[in-house]
Structures are given as structure tokens and as C-alpha cells.
């Protein structure tokens, strides 16, 4: 029996069609997520991380269209599902923790109500006993994420930022999903709460054998919690591999420069090296490798031909670069 990955994204391209231009927000991206593993997607703002995530649950804004690719969840292509089937899949199989913890809850409904409604909806039948059961589940979920179960009937504004984020995670776990997409779940929080939320996510991932896609621009968060890492640049996935490989043996010049741009707490005190230049306009991306205008190693080939993924140090370490592994002077 061949073990199938939980989520397999193949050759996904998502473009935004604006009035006069076409923004290639995500181009030919492929990756897999295993059960019980956390994949960290990192990259600068606007590199397409969120677009990848929104493509998976098919919740793109009206201008966004998925051009090519397949998204296999347990070997079933989500892109082939009808709208109604997709609606049923959401939250039951894939749940999503949004960037905006503060406004993710409806202010005029209490938190418990917003969690029970999805349990009841996904449970299918509406009856009084189900309602009672749902409330019981919410109390349990609150306990799992470390909230006081007595506060299920509180309104969102009565929660602090960290508590709201916990409640959102409780909501995300409500229907026992297979895959959890966390889009910058800790960006709005301070470092202490951040750490607690990360530990919570980590614990849930292990306890429930959950596949997690963790989106962030903060490499330190990824280093701490993810098994696998994908580095994105300008709509392209440029390098994928295990966290240790990427951090110690990263081969793409962008990966190396990104890591160097983060200060190390334990290492020597040196000046951090900022990444020069700005990311390209995706309505009009550079030819060849999209990183070549900012890349110190760029050669003529980089400007002409798009580099494809190649195995680098191991079968699970893929890099899209002609000059992978070469030293930056």
C-alpha cells in the first residue's frame, strides 16, 4: 500500500485578474503536507503565502482565479468539487485560523454560539439533543485550548487578544479537521502569548495527528515549531525541505539571505544583512528566475529560463535555482 500524503498541492497557479493587468500571485507551486506534521510557509509580505492558503479552501476574493493545478486532500481533488460540496468540506476537513484574531468573531454573537453553530451545521441534523451535545463539546474544547469553560457564553469583546486566539483555535478544532491552515496566527500577539499559542498548536498537532500549514513571515517562529519549511518568493516556491536542512543547509540564495537578515540571539553579535531591493511587481514579473534582479549570484541563464525544482541534498530537499548551494560573497 502506498502511503498518500494528507495534502498534495501540484502545480498550483492562482492569478488575480484586475482591470488591466493580471497579477501572478501564485505560479506553479507544489508541496505536500503529511499527517501530524507542520509545514511552515515563509516569505516576504505579498509573496503569495495567503493566496496559496485561500486557494486550498477556495475562498479567494472575486478577482482571484485558480488557473492550473490540483489540490489533493486524501487523494480527492478539492478543485473538482462543486461549490456546495466545497462548502461542506470547509471546517469539516480543513479549518482555517485567520490572520485577524481580533475581528474573526462576530461581535454580536457570543463565542460559544459561534462554535456550536458550526458543530450543528456539520453534524447535519438539528435537534435539541444535538444542541446540548454541541455546547458540551464547546466546553471540552475550551478546556483543551486552556480557556475557562464557564466563559463559553462570553462575547468576543470580553476576551483578550490571546484568549480570542485560543477561542479561534478551539473553533478550528470543533469538527476534528484533518488539516489546519494557520495564517499568521501569532503575528498580532506579544512574544509571551505567541509562545503559548505556538505550544498549544504544537500540542494539538501531536494529539490529534493534525496536518498543519503554518504561514508566517517570522523565520524564528518556523524554526521553533515546524518540521517542514517552504520558502516562497514572488509567487514561487523556491525551496522546500525539513526545518534543519533549510536552516543549516539552505541552498537557494534567497533562503540564505533571508536567514541572514534575522538576528541570532545566541550567536555572535554581527550586523544583520538586509536584503537589498524590493520584490518584483507580480503583474509584470521578471523573466526567468523571479529572484534574479536581487540575486548576487545571477548569471545569464537565470534571466532567460525559469528554474524548476530539483532534488538537492536529499529526496525531500527541493530547490529551484541554477546556482543552488553556491557561496554568496
Amino acid at each position, binding site marked *: 500500500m502506498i502511503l498518500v500524503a494528507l495534502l498534495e498541492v501540484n502545480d498550483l497557479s492562482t492569478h488575480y485578474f484586475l482591470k488591466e493587468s493580471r497579477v501572478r500571485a501564485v505560479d506553479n507551486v507544489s508541496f505536500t503536507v503529511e499527517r501530524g506534521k507542520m509545514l511552515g510557509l515563509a516569505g516576504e509580505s505579498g509573496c503569495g503565502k495567503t493566496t496559496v492558503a485561500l486557494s486550498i479552501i477556495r*475562498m479567494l476574493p472575486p478577482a482571484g482565479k485558480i488557473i492550473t493545478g490540483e489540490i489533493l486532500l486524501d487523494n480527492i481533488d478539492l478543485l473538482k468539487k462543486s461549490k456546495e460540496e*466545497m462548502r461542506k*468540506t470547509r*471546517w469539516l476537513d480543513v479549518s482555517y485560523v*485567520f490572520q*485577524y484574531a481580533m*475581528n474573526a468573531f462576530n461581535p454580536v454573537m457570543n463565542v460559544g454560539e459561534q462554535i456550536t453553530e*458550526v458543530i450543528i*451545521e456539520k453534524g447535519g441534523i438539528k435537534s435539541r439533543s444535538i444542541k446540548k451535545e454541541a455546547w458540551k463539546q464547546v466546553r471540552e474544547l475550551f478546556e483543551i485550548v486552556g480557556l475557562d469553560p464557564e466563559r463559553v457564553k462570553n462575547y468576543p*469583546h470580553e476576551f483578550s487578544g490571546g484568549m480570542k486566539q485560543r477561542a479561534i483555535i478551539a473553533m478550528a478544532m470543533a469538527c476534528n479537521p484533518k488539516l489546519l491552515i494557520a495564517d499568521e496566527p501569532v503575528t498580532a500577539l506579544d512574544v509571551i502569548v505567541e509562545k503559548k499559542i505556538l505550544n498549544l498548536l504544537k500540542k494539538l498537532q501531536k494529539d490529534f495527528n493534525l496536518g498543519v500549514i503554518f504561514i508566517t513571515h517570522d523565520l524564528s517562529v518556523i524554526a521553533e515549531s515546524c518540521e517542514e519549511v517552504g520558502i516562497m518568493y514572488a509567487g514561487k516556491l523556491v525551496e522546500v525541505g525539513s526545518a534543519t536542512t533549510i536552516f543549516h543547509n539552505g541552498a537557494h540564495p534567497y533562503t540564505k539571505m533571508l536567514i541572514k537578515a534575522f538576528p541570532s540571539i545566541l550567536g555572535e553579535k554581527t550586523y544583520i544583512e538586509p536584503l537589498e531591493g524590493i520584490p518584483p511587481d507580480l503583474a509584470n514579473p521578471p523573466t526567468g528566475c523571479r529572484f534574479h534582479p536581487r540575486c548576487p549570484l545571477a548569471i545569464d541563464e537565470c534571466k532567460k529560463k525559469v528554474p524548476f525544482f530539483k532534488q538537492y541534498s536529499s529526496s525531500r530537499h527541493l530547490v529551484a535555482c541554477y546556482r543552488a548551494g553556491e557561496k554568496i560573497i
Partner: protein
Amino acid sequence: MGFRRYIIRRAIDSIILLMITVIFNFILFRVMPGDPTTAILGRSGSPVYNPGEYRTRLIERFGLNKAILPFIDKDFQITPDLNTLIDNQFVVYIQKLLVGDLGISFNYFPQEVSYLIFGHRLLNTILLMGLSIVLSFLIAILLGTLASSKFKSKTDMTLIFTTLTSYSTPVFWIGMLIVFFCYGQLGILPYGGSPRIEEYSDLSSWGLDYLYHMIGPLVTLTISFVGAWFLIARDQMLGVFTEDYITTARAKGLKERRVMFVHARKNAMLPMISVLALAMTYLVSGATMTETVFNWNGLGLLTYESVYRQDYPVLQGLLLLVAAVAIISNFIADLIYGLLDPRIRY
């Protein structure tokens, strides 16, 4: 606990506001030009045997020779007279107000203002305005939800065009068009008027004729109300659609119906409560123009008459009633806000 304190605080606010309104209402009609006696004597037209003496008696009868406020005499001059402390027009006004006496109309002399206002006119206006407000409100919300769910579609554009047209059309003109076509050309509606129950043998025949006469003004008012409220309702819904919690609700895979009617509309309707609270004053002020066009005997028509004939006591009474209703309905709206939106209570 929080909610009770909120109610008490709002109630105190409302009472203070009401008192200020009473004072302003009193002063406003004292500083207006013209003497009430002139209005009565000048209007009567008949040669009065001795106008001078008649005027003096009227002034005494109305108490117009008394000081206006403590230490301010009838000509708005400061006076040191201690008697004015209690014996002044304001104290008399408040005393009479507390027992429901709003004075005597000049125009309908010697009928009392309270009789003129709180009678069949009030009923006529409340029935007409209440029905048209409820009707327009429901239509506006329904169309607003429809248009916002089909944003920028043909339906949306058509609705916006229609309602903008009806909103910017003067209401009396809509009324006149209805009279012209439905009465003049087609003859399917009566010319105007509001049937009084006394003139009918039984309740049902009165009710039918009453509703029949109401169609014209009702349609006119609904057309003009829907115009403004539709745009507000649509705008509110669209604003809510871009909120993050709506995205969350959709990502949760809830039925679109639930997202629209439970998550979006509950938030979008909050500002509509203010709109409704403001509209409550129409319940008693009536739509002056519509009532005049259709000769609907309500408070709007009374206002028109009173302004035309400088019937200050009636205007004063009407103004006070409108202000009181405005304050009370805003108080109620605040309570509803507090109930619907848990964030407001604290």
C-alpha cells in the same frame, strides 16, 4: 448589572433633554414677532366694537401682561421685581403643562390645543405614518439585502437608479402625480380626505373606506421613504460583507443563507434602528406635504394650517409633542441597541 445601569443612565439623559426642550419651546414662541391678540383680532375680520378694550381683556385672559421668566418682564427687560419669581408666564406654562393643558388655539378659538392635537387628527396621522413607515422599512431592508447580495449586477443598478429617482423627487409632486393619474385620469382612487368614523353606520364600512382613502398618501410616503432607507440598508450590508467575521463565517462552510441573515444582517441592522428611531417623529409630526396634498386630516395638515394662520399655541403643542416623541423613541432605540449589541452596554 451592566444593562440596568445603562438604562438608568440613558433615562436620566432623556429626562434632562426633555426639560431643556420644554424651556426652548417656551422661549421660542415668546421671542417670535407678533402679538397673539393681533392674530385673533386681525383674523376675525368682523368689526369689533372696541378693539382696544377687547385686546386688553385678551391680554389679561392669556396672562400676557405677566413677566416671562423670573426677573425678566414681558418685554424681555430685566426687572428687580421679586413678585416675578413665582408669578410669571413660565411657571404658569409649566403648571398647565403638567395637567395637560396646552392652551387655546387662535385659529379654532376657543377650542383647546390638547383637544385639537389628541383627537382624530393624531389617530389619522399615526395610522397613516405608522403603516407607511413599517411598509417602507420592510421593503427597504428586503431590497437592500437583495441588492447587496447581487452587488453591481443589473438588479442592483436598476434598484439604485429607481430609488435615487424616488428619493430625489419632491414628495408633494409624487402625491400630485398620483392624484392626477389615479383620480383624474383613471378614477380608481378618491381625490382625498380622511373619512371620520362618526359618518358611518358600522365599523367595517368605515374601515374599508378609510383604507381606500389611505392608499394614495400611503403609496406616496412609501415611495419617498424607501428611496432613502434602501440606500442605507444596502450600504450597511455591503459594509458588513467585507468584515472579517463574515469571511470567517464563510470559511466555516456555513450555508450562505445563514451567513447573510444571521451573521451579516444582525450587524447591518444596528444603524437601521437609528433610522427607525428618527422616523418615529413622523408618527406624530406627520408628513405635512403629503397630508396637505391628499387633504388627510392629520397633524401634518394641522401644522400647515397653524403655520399659515400663525396659530402659535397649536404649533407650540405640536413641537413639544414631536420633541417628546423624538426623545422617547431615541431612548427606546438605545435600549434596543444595548440588547442587540453587547459591546454598547458597558
